[in-house]
């Protein structure tokens, strides 16, 4: 007896290891039976008694899923307090991930915890033997994510810090803008401001660009309407979260964010 809408099923996930990646960012290694996600897809993570939130895995190997989580509010703080042996609950994977079968080389651009799906994409691209460069930006050196991991996978690594404590002093976007033209593909995830600039640049240069974006995700399966991108009516949870630049053009993306009851807030 095969069941209905199998991916809606809650799977228990036991924490096997917790790694501090940077100030305010931890990775959890979880043993769980969900399907292997495509990089850029997300899972819904539930800590009973708290909320269920979307997280894009940063790695998957044989039943071990890695989530890299930044403390932002109550649920993410609670997740940071969990220890190996404790459990959380996961469903998914959901949505459309990065298309890693595009031809040519790839420029991967990550800002903040946006590095999570990007580093996972990097793993999988390298396994396919693709040529990959990784641009990671952060406020300062101690906030940089997955630098050595990217190097281990033999990717070219570009670093940008706001305070210049390591690499280029400035933003990842500034570094990216100079490099994009050399690549066939751009994959990006991070703050919307940054992603918007990358999108414009790629459209200008005609470089294929896939961007993983965020909206308020509540159901994850395309029926609650909380993650919709006006005016095209794209659902981030199921039409995305990864979109091609062309799809995001002429939408609210980069301009404002529609919170669940329909409240629009400008992107700072």
């Amino acid at each position, binding site marked *: 007896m095969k*069941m*209905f*809408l199998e991916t*809606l*099923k*809650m799977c*228990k996930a036991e924490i096997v290891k917790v790694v501090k990646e940077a100030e305010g960012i931890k990775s959890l290694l979880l043993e769980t039976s969900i399907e292997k996600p495509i990089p850029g897809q997300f899972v*819904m993570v*539930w800590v*009973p*008694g708290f*909320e*269920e*939130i979307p997280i894009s895995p940063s790695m998957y190997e044989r039943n071990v899923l890695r989530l890299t989580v930044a403390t932002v509010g109550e649920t993410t703080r609670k997740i940071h307090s969990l220890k190996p042996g404790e*459990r959380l*609950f996961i*469903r998914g994977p959901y949505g459309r991930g990065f298309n890693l079968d595009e031809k040519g080389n790839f420029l991967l651009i990550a800002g903040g915890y946006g590095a999570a799906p990007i580093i996972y994409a990097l793993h999988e691209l390298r396994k396919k033997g693709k040529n990959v460069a990784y641009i990671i930006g952060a406020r300062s050196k101690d906030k940089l994510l997955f630098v050595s991991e990217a190097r281990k996978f033999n990717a070219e690594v570009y670093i940008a810090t706001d305070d210049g404590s390591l690499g280029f002093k400035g933003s990842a976007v500034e570094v990216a803008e100079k490099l994009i033209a050399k690549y066939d593909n751009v994959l990006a995830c991070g703050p919307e401001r940054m992603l918007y600039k990358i999108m414009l640049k790629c459209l200008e240069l005609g470089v294929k660009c896939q961007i993983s974006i965020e909206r308020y995700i*509540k*159901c*994850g*399966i*395309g*029926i*609650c*309407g*909380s993650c*919709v*991108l*006006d*005016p*095209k*009516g*794209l*659902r981030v949870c*199921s039409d995305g979260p990864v979109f091609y630049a062309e799809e995001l053009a002429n939408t609210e993306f980069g301009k404002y964010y*529609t919170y*669940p*009851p*329909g*409240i629009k807030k400008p992107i700072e």
Partner: protein
Amino acid sequence: MVNLKVSISKLKLKTPILLASGVLGSSYSTINRVIRETRIGAIVTKSFTWEPRVGYNTPIVAYTKAGIVNAVGLTNPGYRALKEILGNIVKNDVPIVVSIAASTSKEYAEIASFAEENGADAVELNLSCPHVKGHGLEIGQDPEYVGKIVHEVRSVLKIPVIVKLGLTDRIVDSALKAEKAGADAVSAINSIRSVVIDVYARKPILSNIYGGLSGPAIHPIAVRVVFDLYKNIEIPIIGIGGVTDWVDAVEFFLAGASAVAIASVIAIKGLKVIDEIIKGIEEYMDKEGFQKISELVGLAHGN
């Protein structure tokens, strides 16, 4: 040639499939998208309330073997936003039905008037939300109160008034009262109050504990309700509940529904399911020798 057009009171639908309230019906952009990408016959908006509602905290959906249990919590920007939303919907041949969930008959009437003024083609009174206190099921359980609300709304409105009922002991009585009070159609059913508990978390999954079960699980119950309603009322019935393919839709017609609305199946099969269902109905009618949907309606009641 098969003709898929149906009429629900004054509404003219090019196909007999409606988008049920709650799915993809809270913003103008998704409504426009459904109109653009599918052969949908009409769209029922998410239920609008007096004040904006953020809805419940997550988790708002839970898995069951045969359906989805949801407790979205009537997330909506409040009825005043209807002006902008309706204003942004592209003009076309797909009627827009504004769903309303309120807590008094006065609120129902005021929101309905506002919807009408702003271009709604009909209103649907949601008297059956299974998980929001004071906005739902308790109302539909009380036939007298149903009659009162319908009467009040009907008396201030020109556009059709549809009443959406849920599974209650007295659903037929409520429908009869609604009909008597001037309702133009009845929609049935809403999702059915349920609880899902995770055996490892040992807690109800939904933050609201209670949610509404929809999907294949509820279909035979919904068919029974439509069958019962058809025996008792004259106004058209919109069958809702667990439609996942054309067979389920045709079953509703045979039970007595003049049209069918779908919600959860979108989560499983995506928007394309709308046209698949319509195509299936068309082929069935063609092969079985039916020209119009109305020939199917209530056919299972004969001998």
